[in-house]
């Protein structure tokens, strides 16, 4: 579904992403894991062209992403960021309708889709007229996801989506969200520095350091056959959190 080949990004002499190649299959959830500054967020933003690569290529669904205008392309890719990235001046209903409107959907279709999402996310419809400032952190995160899923994109990109939540809410929200059928059928690339989150959500994990992928594989592979000491140390660092 997503194919990165030899992707490199340089900022003013400093190489943020250095020759990254990977493949994400249909319906798969790939987690880009690593410390801050390891290049994982830059890699993610290159996929939907918020950042243009210095060299290398990206194909989504077999098509080179540079073949189409950025904005139009991004409308077909879901995008979730920390704390939802909701617009303070949009109500929940307007937030969810954002991408469908950009795509020119009919009002009644948008409304039906909004209701459907609210039901799936178990949010009362009274929330629809509220502004982000009037929502809890967990609610904001749900709405952020609903906004990303509204136009049924085949691919969703998530950048530290649960970063602003406290650990308890975070676990709760992510279990609930990743339990949704909608998300299970979607190809997801998720960026996090939280090992337990990666182990819990990932079909495969790409562990990055200094712009390169150190190891890519299923959580079991990384735990049981770490490629380097760095991989072992990174995953071992917080094992107690896995089972608490």
């Amino acid at each position: 579904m997503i194919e990165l080949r030899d992707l490199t990004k340089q900022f003013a002499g400093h190489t943020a992403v250095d020759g990254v190649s990977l493949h994400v299959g249909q319906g798969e959830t790939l987690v880009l894991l690593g410390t801050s500054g390891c290049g994982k967020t830059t890699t993610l933003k290159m996929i939907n062209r918020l950042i243009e690569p210095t060299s290398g290529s990206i194909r989504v669904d077999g098509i080179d992403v540079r073949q189409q205008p950025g904005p139009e392309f991004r409308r077909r890719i879901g995008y979730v960021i920390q704390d939802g990235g909701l617009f303070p001046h949009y109500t929940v209903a307007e937030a969810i309708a954002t991408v469908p409107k950009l795509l020119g959907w009919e009002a009644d279709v948008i409304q039906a889709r909004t209701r459907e999402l609210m039901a799936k996310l178990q949010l009362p419809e009274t929330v629809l007229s509220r502004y982000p400032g009037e929502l809890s952190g967990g609610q904001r995160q749900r709405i952020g996801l609903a906004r990303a899923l509204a136009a049924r994109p085949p691919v969703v990109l998530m950048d530290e989506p649960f970063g602003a939540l406290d650990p308890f809410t975070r676990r709760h929200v992510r279990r609930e969200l990743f339990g949704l059928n909608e998300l299970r059928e979607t190809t997801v690339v998720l960026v996090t520095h939280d090992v337990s989150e990666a182990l819990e959500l990932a079909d495969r994990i790409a562990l990055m350091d200094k712009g390169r992928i150190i190891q890519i594989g299923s959580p079991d592979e990384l735990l049981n056959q770490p490629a380097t000491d760095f991989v072992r140390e990174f995953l071992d660092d917080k094992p107690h959190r896995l089972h608490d």
Partner: protein
Amino acid sequence: MTDFFTFVRDHADKLLEQTLTHIGLTFLSLLVALLIGVPLGILIARRQRLAGGVLGVAGVLQTVPSVALLGFLIPVLGIGIGPALVALFLYALLPIIRNTYVGITEVSPSVKEAARGLGMTPNQVLTRVEFPLALPVIFAGIRTATVINVGVATLAAYVAAGGLGEFIFSGIALSNVNMMLAGAIPAALLAVGFDFGLARLQQLSGRKLRVGALAFVALVPFISAFYLLPGRQDKLIAGFAHEFYGRTDGYPGLQKTYGLQLRPRLIDQNLMYEAIHRGQVDIISGYSTDGRINAFDLLVLDDNRHAFPPYAAAPVIRKATLNRYPDLEPTLNKLAGKLTDSVMTALNYRVDYQKESPEKVARDFLNQTGLYKKPSSVNRTETVVVGTKVFTEQYILAELYRQLIEGQTNLRVVTKTGLGGTQICFDALRTGTIDFYPEYTGTGLLVIMQPPAETLQQLPMQTDSVYQFVQQQFQARYQMDWLKPLGFNNSYCLMMRREQARQLGIRSIEDLVRYLDPK
């Protein structure tokens, strides 16, 4: 206080017109500032490299004092709404550009990134996300600009653009507190009122604010149209000095004597001549011997009903000086009747516009009239002191007297040419600091003597009668004498461009009244 309300009631029409003009000016300039400032603010938010320069220039413009700014604009734009509008626009620009810039750059980066990430084009990010979120800040800038402009718009009255400054500056020129307050209080109320109203609008939250702010901005063009409401379609446009407009011997006297009905624009008296020269007004008030009458080819309208009191010039001299130097009176009287209006105007013109020295102009005149004598080289022990007020005509007269006296007598003459005003000159004369100075009969009557209203009503406003009245009174009260008049009258007058007056067949104020209101 009751005087104030009486004044307001009597001038309600004028006050309403001024208020509407004032509001119109404020909002017209605000509209232009919005049309230019908001896009400029957006531009510099996009291209940060330009931000420093643009905000710097707007900031410098903001710090230029408003009177100085008008001073820069008048040579380029003349008078009227042009310079007023440009000055107001420049003052409104900074708060609008700066707040647009700050409002947009302060939108959270994560929100902007989310907007792009969802697939909005740069224009959609601007119009759907950045601009609505920046609106409260932009609106605060609009509020600041509005309040600044209500204040600065009072200065429009300097350049004949109208507004509440007309009453304020006329009031100051006439020391008329009620008139001053009739302009100042509404101007202050407008500022406070707009500030309060816009503050209330600003406190609305979210969508209400956006709707309110857009409604306000949509209203601005309509409010701007207030400027056009007070009709200005007179056949001839009059531009009067603030003092002339308010003084009883100025415009009110004309209204009483001739039934003249104009809707004069008020304008600073030094800009008046420039305005009529450029054709921005057709009739101005002025002084009958001003050098600019020649310079700009103006025609002084004949005042055959004597609405303006005569201001015949003559030397006022201490009795003691006359007694001590018996030569002096016949010598000074040699000038009597020699300086007619047109002669004096020509002399003023040579000094003001041809930049000749008063000394040379005076000598040329004495030569032409055969009064010039080369001063003999005797030892001059006795001294007379001539005083003058601070304007060209008086400087020329002082030179005439100096050269005349030194040529014809053995007296030494000292000139004191810096006595600020009538009262200062007169006090210097009374205390003996000076021996004589050229004064005008009207000034002697209305400024120095200030007789009660009944006396004035009985006194015929003719050159001779006023001269005789002040002469007798000064002899009796102050031991001073008015010597023979020089011949010219430097009085208030109405002027038109000679060419236009000829075309319309207007020579006198009576002709003007007939032309304006043919029955």
